């Protein structure tokens, strides 16, 4: 029976429990044991988790928004009994929520993030909290204060990041599905590097309340799952207006489970700018800040997916996103600026750690932040403080916000002639541990293809589209704001046609 349980997707697990063919406790116990064995493995685990539940009853329950505290009945709802792994940065009442940072070590929040609450109201049980780059700043999960997570496909490589614990856990079969967040690619890139599905929804469609903030104008919660159907199912129960997040909104329609088998009549756009990024093309990303090179195996898998899409009835057209090569530069002004402001709250006064032996209040602040924050977080706080400082604001932040407008306009123009846009999710497959830590910009380039969609606030999904050198390659499909149903349908049809074997990374 155990192997059969591992084969069930989250949607299949929910259906089996609803029909009475499977006990919720049986499914929870199965995954708890798998998750616990990874967490407690000395030296030979993947380090996917920062906390594993002892019991399904540890699932934080509350009803109504914000601080209110009358519990919902557990174990009811359409997702009843399906265990969920949740990225560390989501506040979960009474359960450690540390955002991968030493400064929040042992922090147990007094309330639960709205996205987690929405899913528990739909019936999921909290299985574990997953490892991540500190405050979601990173593309490899090497920036966690709790040690790096390893890629289950090859333990000498990173799982991507920042939602690397969530992605590796799902790929390795240590959780049926997981919740992550994406600021510049933190769901899509680890999903690609681990051979699973990751969806970043339209900005505002999922509440950010209770997510420990990185860059508030970009942060979005979304699913990391084994297949497209599970991504749709989780998203369906997450979207919606939340009175606790003024940037959240009513999703204009219900999220449907995808069914499309064909792509007849669908117009798919491929950015012309991708051509200059081939490994054999001279000069790199013409005009931009240099996008690195697309690995040949990634290019081949991408081209195969395009052929397959044509075979399913779609037309492929070249489109232009002329400002996309500048997206990364704009992003590395905007995200650190917002981070430097958001992270000002970590001062050693109200929660988390406080450095000992301070002489006065200012000394306590600066020492606490020195000891509590990791290298990359300090780097971004410094960058953001500089970009927002008097005299530099317009040259950096102001200009970056204007580039952001141009990028949104590029997408708007492209979506006038195509329905969806396809790119590789990442220019390369999972890279080696330590390979990019010495050079911050080389790490930042990991998000070259995912950052433009983040700046425009539009939805994008990564699905596995083959292997390069035995490691998974991700295909990114992006659409206009609120086009999630069309996006999921197209991704589903492609997924069926691609027939990716997702079980290879199971542990």
């Amino acid at each position, binding site marked *: 029976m155990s192997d059969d349980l591992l084969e069930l997707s989250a949607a299949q697990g929910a259906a089996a429990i609803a029909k009475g063919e499977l006990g919720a406790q049986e499914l929870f116990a199965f995954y708890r044991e798998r998750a616990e064995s990874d967490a407690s493995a000395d030296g030979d685990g993947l380090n996917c988790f920062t906390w594993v539940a002892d019991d399904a009853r540890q699932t934080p329950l509350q009803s109504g928004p914000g601080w209110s505290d009358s519990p919902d009945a557990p174990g009811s709802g359409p997702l009843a009994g399906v265990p969920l792994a949740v990225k560390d940065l989501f506040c979960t009442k009474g359960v450690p929520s540390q955002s991968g940072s030493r400064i929040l070590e042992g922090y147990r929040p007094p309330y639960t993030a709205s996205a987690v609450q929405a899913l528990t109201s739909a019936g999921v049980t909290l299985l574990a909290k997953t490892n991540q780059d500190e405050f979601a700043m990173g593309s490899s999960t090497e920036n966690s204060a709790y040690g790096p997570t390893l890629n289950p496909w090859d333990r000498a490589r990173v799982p991507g990041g920042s939602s690397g614990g969530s992605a590796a856990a799902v790929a390795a079969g240590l959780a049926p599905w997981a919740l992550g967040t994406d600021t510049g690619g933190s769901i899509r890139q680890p999903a690609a590097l681990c051979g699973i599905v990751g969806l970043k929804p339209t900005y505002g469609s999922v509440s950010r309340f209770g997510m420990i903030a990185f860059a508030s104008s970009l942060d979005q919660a979304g699913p990391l799952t084994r297949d497209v159907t599970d991504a749709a199912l989780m998203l369906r129960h997450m979207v919606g207006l939340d009175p606790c997040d003024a940037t959240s909104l009513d999703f204009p329609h219900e999220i449907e489970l995808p069914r499309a088998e064909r792509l007849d009549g669908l117009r798919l756009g491929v950015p012309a700018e991708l051509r200059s990024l081939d490994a054999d093309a001279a000069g790199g990303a013409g005009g931009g800040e240099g996008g690195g090179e697309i690995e040949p195996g990634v290019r081949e898998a991408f081209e195969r997916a395009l052929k397959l899409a044509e075979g399913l009835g779609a037309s492929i057209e070249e489109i232009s996103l002329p400002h996309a090569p500048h997206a990364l530069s704009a992003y590395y002004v905007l995200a650190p600026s917002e981070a430097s402001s958001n992270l000002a709250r970590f001062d050693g006064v109200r*929660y988390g750690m406080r450095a000992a032996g301070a002489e006065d209040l200012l000394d306590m602040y600066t020492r606490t932040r020195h000891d509590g924050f990791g290298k990359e977080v*300090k780097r971004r706080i410094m960058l953001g403080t500089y970009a927002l400082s008097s005299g530099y604001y317009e040259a950096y932040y102001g200009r970056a916000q204007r580039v952001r407008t141009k990028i*949104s306009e590029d997408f708007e123009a492209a979506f006038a002639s195509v329905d969806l846009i396809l790119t590789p999710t990442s220019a390369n497959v999972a890279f080696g541990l330590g390979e990019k830590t010495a050079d911050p910009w080389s790490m930042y380039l990991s998000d070259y293809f995912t950052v433009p969609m983040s700046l425009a606030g539009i939805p994008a999904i990564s699905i596995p589209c083959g292997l390069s050198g035995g490691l998974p390659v991700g295909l990114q499909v992006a659409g206009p704001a609120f086009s999630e149903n069309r996006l999921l349908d197209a991704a589903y049809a492609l997924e069926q046609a691609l027939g990716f074997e997702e079980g290879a990374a199971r542990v």
Partner: protein
Amino acid sequence: MARLARLALSDEEIEPMARELSAVLDHIAKIGELELDDVAPTSHVVELTGALRSDEPRPSLPREVALEQAPAVEGDGFLVPSPQA
């Protein structure tokens, strides 16, 4: 800049930090080459209306719960070192 960011940095930390930040700023500086004078800055990516809630008092976090996670507490408040000890 570190003082402005309320970050203590040791002498050994300052040099690599300055070098890494300069390299990142060189890449970022490329946006200075774009013609953007007539472009409005983005303030929000998705159009929102009626984001204001009604101005009604609601319960907030109870004091004892708010103090529970603090590193140091005295009476009903957070305890901190004196500003000019």
